[in-house]
Each structure stands twice: as structure tokens, then as C-alpha cells.
């Protein structure tokens, strides 16, 4: 036993020494990133990282593809608990409270020393920062961020006598348009639905569009209080349920996310709600003229934001943290984030990106890319609390129960609120 132990210590000691030698010449960084929009995104991140390393011999950054968002957070947390965290990772903005709770990340504030750094930190859209700050500190820097928008089929609109350039502006209009757009065959089977709001997996996200439009916020900014049983939330859920039930403009039951763009391309639905992350996909594959618009309004306009932020991990040397900070600053700069936005469809996270020539040329050629940016003015933080996985699961289950008709919206949401209270009471 003794021998093994001594051997172990020797190994660790030599590993530490190796590490020190390496830091003396260049700072080594590991950077985990998830991919949620297909293979091209991985290539773009790799290319950007290579470009940075080429120009900055002092930093050796290794970009590591870490699977989906869920797998990335698992990988990063495992590595952090195992004592070897990445220095930098892109993780869902809603996982901020979890990462703070696990005590594995540090705020960016301590690393921003010059005025220029501080100005940089306040150069992002406030809608994106809502999910990146808590208790007066900034823990995340927005990078691959998105927001849901409405896509509509202009040919279908023309066919039923609607103006192909005007999407529904309100909830009532969406129902009214939807009723016109529903098409049935001779046997009374629906061949085209009016609208499609996907509800599989994480129904809370698009549903948050409806609640925001009904002027209610689902969780406070401290992440320890939810308002699932608010009458306005119930009303929003009733509307969603009615789209399939009372109004008959949406297919009943749970609607798949992954199959939604396909259904839109094949004309099985005339409108769909989905993320801007799909913009490039729709542009390349829709066989008809399509439009992109903001989500319809009710009491107000509204939509959630979504997607991933940069986080800097705690258990690394000050040099590494500083190098990570510099890299984040570079990759979110206007030119780089313009490249990223064009390659993926994610919303560029700061106003000056949209002022670059690259971006101007892109939006002149493809104006729908601007819709998401304009909608940001009305956007709110994605639902995020402490114990985020558990709380959103409770909420998702309630939504699914109401959508499938197992419970009434009011009952389902009251139960969800009770369960969320039980989970969150330790954090108040």
C-alpha cells in the first residue's frame, strides 16, 4: 500500500511540475463548448479559436467539443469536482445558479481591471444580461444566444387570401389566421395546421413566450421564487391548450421540436414558433417563400431569450483566468461575433456587432436576421432558478399534463408551484 501511495504522490508531483513548466512558456487553457445547431457550429468555433491562438502565442487554447448542452454541463461539473475543471466553458445561461451553487465559477467583475474592460462588460444587450448576472455580479458573458420567432409560409398565406407580408400581430389574430389556414382533405383529416408550437422536451421555453406576452414573469432574479400559479400564467396555458382544443388550429398532443422545421418545409403547418438558431436551416431548406416575424403580442410583446454563456472556472491559476478573460473579450468582439452569427443564426449579443460591414452586408441580403435583434427589446430572461433542472422538470411536467389533457391548466400549475416551493425554500 505504502509503495503505491508513494508512487501516486510522485506521479502527482511530476504532473504538477510539468504543469508549472508549461505555464512558464504559454498559458494552457481548456475550453469546452456544446453544439446545438449541427456540425458547422463546431467548425466555426474551432476556426475562431485557432485564429486567436495563431495571433496570441502567449495563450494555448484547446477547444473541446463536449456534446449537447446537457452533456457539456455534466462534463464540466465532473471535471470540476474531479479537480481538473476547464478554464472556460460555454454552458446554458440558465445553469448559472447551479454553477454558483456548486461553487465552480467566478464572476467576470474581478478580472475586468481597465475602464475598457468594464465598458466591454456593459456592451451587451440588457435582455441577455438578465440571465448572466445575479447579486450585482456578472457570471456569464452572452455568446450563443437565441430567442424564438414566428416563421410563416407566404405561399400558404396567399392561397387563403391573407396578406403574405403580414404575420399575426396578436393572439386573437393568430387564431383567426390559423382557422383560415387549416386545410382538410375530403375525409375531414387535417392536411395542414395553422400553427405549430413545439412542446416536447422543454415546453417551458416557448410557453414563456406566451406568459411574457400575458405580462407575467415566471421567476425572480434571485432564482428562489417562482410564480407558476399566477392567474396570468394559467390564462396563457389555457390559450395554448385552446389552440388545439377550442380553436382547432394546432395539432393536439405533444409536438416534437426536432420534427417541426421538417413539418414546416413539407407544408404540414403554415406557421411555426421556433428558435432563431433555425434561421440558416430554414433559409437553406424551405421550398417556398417564408417570412420571419416577432411572436404575436397580447397584453404586451414578449419572448424569452435562450442559449449559452461563457463561464470562467474557479479552480485555475490567475494567469489562466486572465487569459480566459482576454479570449472571451476577443471572441465576443464585433467582427468575431458577426462571423459566428452568420454561420449559425444565433443572435449577435451586442449592438455594435450589427454595425460591422460584414453584418450589414448580411442583413441587407437577408433582412429576417434583424427580427430577432429587434425583438430583444421585449425579451426577458429564460426561466432559471436554483436547482434549475428539478424546478424546470416540475414545470415541464405540469405543462405536458395540461397539453395532453391529463389535468386542467389551473390544477397542473398549482401543483407545480407547490413542488417548486418545496424545492426552493432552502434558498430563501
Amino acid at each position, binding site marked *: 500500500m505504502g509503495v503505491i501511495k508513494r508512487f501516486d504522490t510522485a506521479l502527482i508531483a511530476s504532473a504538477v511540475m510539468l504543469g508549472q513548466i508549461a505555464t512558464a512558456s504559454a498559458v494552457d487553457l481548456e475550453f469546452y463548448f456544446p*453544439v446545438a*445547431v449541427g*456540425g458547422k457550429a463546431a467548425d466555426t468555433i474551432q476556426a475562431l479559436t485557432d485564429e486567436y491562438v495563431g495571433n496570441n502565442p502567449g495563450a494555448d487554447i484547446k477547444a473541446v467539443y463536449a456534446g*449537447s448542452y446537457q452533456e457539456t454541463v455534466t462534463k464540466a461539473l*465532473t471535471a470540476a469536482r474531479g479537480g481538473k475543471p476547464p478554464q472556460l466553458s460555454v454552458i446554458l445561461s440558465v445553469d448559472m445558479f447551479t454553477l454558483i451553487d456548486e461553487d465552480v465559477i467566478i464572476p467576470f467583475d474581478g478580472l475586468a481591471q481597465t475602464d475598457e474592460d468594464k465598458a466591454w462588460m456593459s456592451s451587451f444587450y440588457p435582455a441577455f444580461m438578465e440571465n448572466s448576472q445575479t447579486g450585482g455580479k456578472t457570471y456569464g458573458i452572452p455568446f450563443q444566444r437565441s430567442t424564438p420567432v414566428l416563421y410563416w409560409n407566404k405561399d400558404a398565406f396567399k392561397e387563403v387570401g391573407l396578406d403574405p407580408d403580414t404575420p399575426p400581430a396578436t393572439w386573437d389574430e393568430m387564431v383567426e389566421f390559423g382557422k383560415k389556414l387549416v386545410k382538410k382533405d375530403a375525409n375531414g383529416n387535417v392536411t395542414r395546421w395553422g400553427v405549430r408550437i413545439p412542446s416536447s422536451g422543454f415546453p417551458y421555453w416557448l410557453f414563456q413566450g406566451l406568459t411574457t406576452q400575458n405580462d407575467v414573469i415566471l421567476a425572480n432574479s434571485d432564482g428562489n421564487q417562482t410564480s407558476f400559479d399566477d392567474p396570468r400564467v394559467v390564462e396563457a396555458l389555457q390559450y395554448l391548450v385552446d389552440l388545439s382544443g377550442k380553436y382547432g388550429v394546432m395539432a393536439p398532443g405533444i409536438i416534437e421540436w426536432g420534427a*417541426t422545421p421538417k413539418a414546416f418545409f*413539407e407544408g404540414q403547418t403554415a406557421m411555426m414558433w421556433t428558435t432563431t438558431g433555425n434561421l440558416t436551416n430554414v433559409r437553406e431548406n424551405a421550398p417556398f417563400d417564408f417570412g420571419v416575424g416577432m411572436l404575436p403580442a397580447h397584453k404586451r410583446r414578449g419572448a424569452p431569450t435562450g442559449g449559452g454563456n461563457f463561464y470562467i472556472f474557479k479552480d485555475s491559476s490567475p494567469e489562466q483566468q486572465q487569459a480566459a478573460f482576454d479570449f472571451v473579450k476577443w471572441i465576443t468582439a464585433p467582427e468575431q461575433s458577426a462571423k459566428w452569427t452568420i454561420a449559425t443564426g444565433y443572435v449577435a449579443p451586442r449592438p455594435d456587432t450589427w454595425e460591422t460591414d460584414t453584418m450589414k452586408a448580411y442583413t441587407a441580403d437577408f433582412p429576417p436576421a434583424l427580427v430577432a435583434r429587434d425583438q430583444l427589446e421585449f425579451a426577458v430572461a429564460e426561466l432559471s432558478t436554483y436547482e434549475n433542472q428539478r424546478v424546470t422538470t416540475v414545470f415541464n411536467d405540469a405543462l405536458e399534463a395540461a397539453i395532453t389533457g391529463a389535468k386542467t391548466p389551473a390544477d397542473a400549475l398549482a401543483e407545480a408551484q407547490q413542488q417548486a416551493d418545496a424545492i426552493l425554500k432552502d434558498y430563501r
Partner: protein
Amino acid sequence: MRAGRAGWPDFDTALNTVAMCLLAFLWALPLLYAIWTAIHPAAYETRFVLTAPLTLDNFAKAWAAAPFARYFLNTVMLVTLILICQFVLCTLAAFAFARFRFPGRSLLFTLVLLQLLVMPDILIVENYKTIRAMGLVDTIIAIGLPYFASGFGIFLLRQTFMSIPRELDEAARVEGISFLGLLWRVYIPLAKPTYLAYGLVSVSHHWNNFLWPLIITNSVETRPVTVGLSIFSAVDAGIEWSVINAATLMTSGPLLIAFLLFQRQFVQSFMRAGIR
């Protein structure tokens, strides 16, 4: 009555055959769908027209999306390494448990069996710490190491060894054979079906393993095919079934082909080894 009775067995066989075909068809359906979508353009994913144009573009696209050649090499090295280490370690341990008496034997064997009850996912963090202390993060050995001493393998081989007649063992000992010779000449040859069956289970399990390899590896040089495959599961952009199915066929292809080639041996060895 007579005619009816004579007709029964036939009817029975026919019913069995029909049920078998139906089940086989249901079982093969996902595979058939995967093949259909993989060899047709994306437009025919949900439209089954016999005259649909055939294409290999999906395979080309999938192959180009990740460095699959390297991933295949890694996976082959990984499963080979694991299989060899498991065979050596499990054989020796199983032989000791089956044929030697030593203090603490049943306690040790209980500990080995306990391993079967623990979900490997629970141990991810502890395993990571161990691997890191050994300085092996991001190596192929690190992916395999936690699986070398397989409780299932030890248990299975011990049961097989215990069922080998004592007489053979004693006859060999009378000839003055060493323990290792005994193992090599008598036990291992008689346990061949078990090795084959266990080998198949082990290879297919590690071929498909995803989470642990993803967590412990960081570079193209060490990652297995499953990690490469996961790049296609991008929900945000809508799933391209044709490409994802082409990639799935590609990565599971070698296993499928191996199974079809050795089908008879596998089925027989499973029957003999008693794993179902």
C-alpha cells in the same frame, strides 16, 4: 375430429411462423427505416415511393462532419484493449474463486458481485478523480480502465469453471500439470462458448458507450465513434434524419456485419453459456 386433429400441428407451425415473421419485422423496422432514409435524398424521409432516387450523399455528408476514420480506429483500439484485459483478469480471478480455497474467499466474491449492483454512472466523479491522480485524463486507457475488472465477467466465468467436471481437473493434475497449464489446457478450451458470448456483450457495450468517454476525453486522437455521432443530435436546428441515419448505420455497421457473419456461433454460445 380426425381431420381437425391431423390439421392442428400444421396450423400451430403456421401460426408460429406468422408470429415470428411479424415480430422480426417489428424488430427490424427501425433498421429498415434507417436504411431507407440513409440511401434516399432528405425529401423522401417520410414519403415511401419505390421510384425514389438513390443516393450516397448522406454518407458522404456524415463522413465529412467529423473525423470518423480516426474515431473508428480509436473505438477498435478501445474495445480490443478492454476485451483483452477483461479476458485475462476475469479468467484468473474466476479460476481462483472457482477452484482455490483461501481465507476471505466468499467475502471477496460478495464484493465482486456487489459491483453488479452499482450503476457505473454514479461512479463517474470518483473515477475521474482516480484517473486524474494517475495522470491519464484524455487517453484511451482511461476510457477502458474502470471496466477492466468486470464483476459480470468474473461471475460468469466462475460459474462456467465450476460446471467443468472435477474428473478432468484431477486427471490433468495427476499428469503433473501446473495451475496455469491446467487453466490453459482444460478450463479455457471448455469455456469457449462463454468467452464468445461475454466477448460479444463486452464489445457491443463498449462500442456504444457514450457518457464516460465523452467526459474523460478531450481530443480527436482519443475519442470513440459515439462522440462523433452525437454531433448530429442538434435539436435546435431540426433533425436531419437522412444524415443522422447514415451516420448511425456507418457507426453501427461493423458490429452489425460481425453479428450477421457469426450469427450462428453467437446464438449457440448464448444458449450454452446461459445468458439471455
